[in-house]
């Protein structure tokens, strides 16, 4: 079964047509990188996958459930689909540990000791076990993002969405976050869809690279084709040359 399927999806913001006829299938275990100029609809596409944006037309099937169907319980989908944002969105009023433990406790009703064990495991995995009691405001950007990843992982999702997870970070913090993302991407049981301009990351771990422009998918290549064969789309080529300066 495919993890994510878009069939002729159309998305509007008021009158503005943000996504045009999107067709896209992502299989379980794939790591897909999504690139494109600012405003091309990358965030819109990725946010519609866990229902943060509602599509107007078409079918969007995530983990076997149709998001356009009003009977679908969006909260059930979100248990399986984690998301990491550009600005981290850590809960400002909760400690690091509480950030990680809150959703498992009140959504999955995970038992307190198990919850804590898993949370500490996740913190360990992102290399921040020693920061458990701090508040988000006391962390650097790179640390915040790693906590945000740990928070998503603690829900044990089948799929993780990343929306420019490194673009708000100081340059020397980028690597730490990318390294964690790489280990996640290599885990074949996890599907990831990543909006990023870090082409090194894409080269190293992506299966596919998708290029968007003006709300459309204009290029959908295997990694090798994209980086070696030169994209067939002219705008994608131009864009690539600019960001690889």
């Amino acid at each position: 079964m495919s993890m994510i399927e878009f069939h002729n999806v159309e998305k509007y913001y008021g009158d503005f047509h943000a996504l045009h006829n999107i067709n896209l299938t992502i299989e379980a275990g794939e790591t897909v990188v999504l690139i494109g100029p600012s405003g091309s609809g990358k965030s819109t596409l990725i946010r519609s996958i866990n229902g943060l944006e509602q599509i107007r037309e078409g079918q969007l099937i995530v983990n076997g459930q149709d998001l356009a169907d009003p009977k679908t319980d969006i909260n059930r989908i979100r248990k399986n689909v984690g998301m990491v944002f550009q600005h981290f969105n850590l809960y400002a009023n909760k400690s690091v540990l509480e950030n990680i433990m809150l959703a498992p406790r009140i959504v999955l009703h995970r038992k307190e000791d198990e919850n804590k064990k898993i949370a500490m495991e996740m913190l360990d995995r992102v290399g921040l076990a020693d920061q458990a009691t701090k508040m988000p405001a006391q962390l650097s950007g790179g640390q915040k993002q790693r906590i945000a990843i740990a928070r998503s992982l603690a829900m044990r999702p089948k799929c993780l969405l990343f929306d420019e997870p490194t673009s708000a970070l100081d340059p020397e913090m980028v690597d730490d976050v990318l390294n964690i993302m790489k280990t996640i991407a290599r885990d074949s049981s996890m599907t990831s869809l990543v909006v990023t301009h870090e082409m090194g990351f894409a080269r190293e771990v992506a299966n596919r690279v998708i290029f968007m422009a003006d709300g459309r998918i204009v290029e959908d290549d295997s990694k090798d084709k994209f980086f070696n064969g030169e994209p067939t789309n002219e705008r994608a080529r131009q864009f690539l040359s600019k960001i690889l300066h």
Partner: protein
Amino acid sequence: MLNNFIAAYSPDNLRYLFGGLGITLLVSVASIIGSFIIGAILGIVRYVKFKYFSAVVGFIIDVIRNLPLILILFFIYFGLPNIGVKPEVIPAAIFAMTIFESAMLAEIVRSGIQAVDPGQMEGARANGLTYWQGLWHIVLPQALVKMIPAIVSQFISLVKDTSLATIILLPEMLYRSQIIYGQNTNYIIPMFVAIAVLYFIVCYALSVLAHYLEKRQA
């Protein structure tokens, strides 16, 4: 001049005036508690948008917010008996102040919630929390911290506004000062000094509290 002050601040007059301060504080504190609870509920109702209910509540809030408090005092004091309730002055004043201030606070609460970074709710939703769970665990606690200064300054206004209840003869501080200087012109300045200082102390203490809370939050 000095003699006027000494005479004006006779033990009897001071006792009488401080009694007025007591009533000012009683009415203030009771209305603060009442309006905080009601205002918070109304503010959430307004933010969350239950179809027609929120619109109706919103309209009523707007009507109350846009009327002078004096009128609301009149409506409560003279109007309630029309539906069979005959409030004494103090409960009437508390009731009127509570209604008025609840409407003001509802507005503060609504905009306080709106001021929380939308990313917080998105983070919570994406993390699997429902809308209400996100509101309760994440958004509301942060909103409360943000709106504390505005709430405290609304309470300062409330304390000051109790003086308007002289119009329904609430025997609070301003009213009592008028009774005292009504008897002797020489007491006018001493009385103004006294009540200005007393109001200032109470309100300034509150605003120092607000500043402190604001700093602690930043």
